[in-house]
């Protein structure tokens, strides 16, 4: 579904992402891990189009994404969440989801007037459903800025889902969560797969990645240094070295 072919992103002398080739197949949950500064978030930004590629290609379902504007990538089916939550704080939970219903299917189904100026039962149903999924139905009229941290994270995911993505890029969704919340997040990610969403999970929290990913890609200094199943990665000395710097036991 997603193919990066020798993708590179250089900021002046800094090679944030350097000749990275990776692929994500439909229905997979792929984990992307690496030490701080290894280029994980930059990779997400490259796929969503916030940064242009310095070289290489990114293909989504066979189509080259070069030159496609950020908001158009939605039309292709790509959505993301943000590492430091970027909700629309002054809008309510409901409105956060409402403004995100921009998928081509939504555009086609309703006329201009209905989409922008009216509301419709169908729209309400879908938003309610998303709220249920995220466990936020009771808070729908609350301003996003007033939500608890865990609720905000769930809203971020729900908002991304409102765009009907085929590929969802989760950028460190477990940051700041306790063990119980991580467990709940794991459940939600698995439920996402059941809904038919392919997932690229960028994460630091190992319990989550190891427990949910089919396959893991490890980055260091913008390059891929390992790839394989969670078990293989855990045993890989190259990965250990990158994270821990040198030989480490256990």
């Amino acid at each position, binding site marked *: 579904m997603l193919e990066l072919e020798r993708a590179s992103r250089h900021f002046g002398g800094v090679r944030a992402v350097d000749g990275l080739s990776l692929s994500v197949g439909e229905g997979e949950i792929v984990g992307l891990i690496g030490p701080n500064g290894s280029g994980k978030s930059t990779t997400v930004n490259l796929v*969503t189009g*916030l940064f242009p590629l310095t070289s290489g290609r990114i293909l989504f379902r066979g189509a080259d994404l070069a030159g496609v*504007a*950020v*908001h158009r990538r*939605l*039309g292709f089916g790509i*959505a*993301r969440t*943000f590492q430091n939550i*970027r*909700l*629309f*704080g*002054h*809008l*309510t939970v*409901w*409105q*956060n989801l*409402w*403004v*995100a219903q*921009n*998928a081509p299917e939504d555009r086609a189904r309703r006329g201009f007037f209905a*989409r*922008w*100026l*009216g*509301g419709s039962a169908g729209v309400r149903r879908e938003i309610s459903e998303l709220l249920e999924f995220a466990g936020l139905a009771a808070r729908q*009229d609350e*301003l996003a800025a007033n939500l608890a941290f865990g609720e905000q994270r769930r809203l971020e995911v729900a*908002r*991304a889902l*409102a*765009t009907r993505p085929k590929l969802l890029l989760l950028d460190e969704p477990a940051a700041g969560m306790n063990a119980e919340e991580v467990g709940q997040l794991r459940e939600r990610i698995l439920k996402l797969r059941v809904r038919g969403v392919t997932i690229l999970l960028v994460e630091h929290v190992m319990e989550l990645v190891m427990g949910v990913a089919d396959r893991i890609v490890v980055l260091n200094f913008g390059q891929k240094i390992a790839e394989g199943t969670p078990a293989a990665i855990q045993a890989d000395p190259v990965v250990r070295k990158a994270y821990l710097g040198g030989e480490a036991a256990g």
Partner: protein
Amino acid sequence: MDFYYGLAQIIGVHTLLGLSAYIVLLTGQVSLAQAGFFAIGAYAAGMLTVLFGWPIVPALAVGAILGAIVACAVGFPALRVRGLMLVIATLAFGEGVRLFFFNFDYQIARGDIKVGPLGGEGFRQIRYFPENGWTTFEVMLFIWAIVAIVMAVLWWFDRSRYGAVLRAVGEDEVAAQSVGINLTAVKVSAMTIGGAVAGVGGGLYAHYTTHIEHTSFNILVATFAIAYPIVGGLASVFGTLAAVVFVQGFLVEGLRFLGDWRNLLFGALIVLAMNLRPDGLVDARVLGRLARVFRGVRRA
């Protein structure tokens, strides 16, 4: 009584001016260009009724359309500049429009006098209302009918998905893009609507003052336009209305006994207001309280 009708007219027209800046401000663009669109609407509507004998409503409509077109044209390059640079660019645009009208002559002979705009002298004798027997009261009602319609439309936009999208863009452009919102379409459309509202306001202004000139559309006016929504708060269209009533009604007229000094007070009061209530007179908390009073909830 005529005095109060006149005041109501001023408040009405200034509300339109403020609303035109309000809708643009929602998208995070601080525009000092609204006075320019206001001027275009004023001169256009004035010329149509005076020089070509058009009735008032179509003339106002053309003023609105022209304001919208020019605003749309401004909206695109405005996308290339962000934040404070946009403030400067729109300020310069507004000044450019003023300078344009300072140099603009278009006169037609009517009998043995010439009518029409004449550069620095301005555009005199826009006498559609008096010539057609409108009383001050009727003009006021007309102005307020239009204001009511515009406010209703904008209020409706605000509660609709479009309003939420405008505010989303104003709040976080990166997040908005990432959920598929087309920033260009949103920002330019807001600017265009603002231009239309300013154009109508300008047309009305030209007709109730009967005499306009380039100094009627200077930086002070551009400042008023942006001050109303900022001082009134961006939570709702009513904030802008409240600010206009506060500024024009209380300040300018209520302090009339201070004579020349009330302009001074205007500046001082803005500074004070911004220090005391940086989020505006009608901010989210006030709005929340009002909403609970009227038992309306922010929901589509």
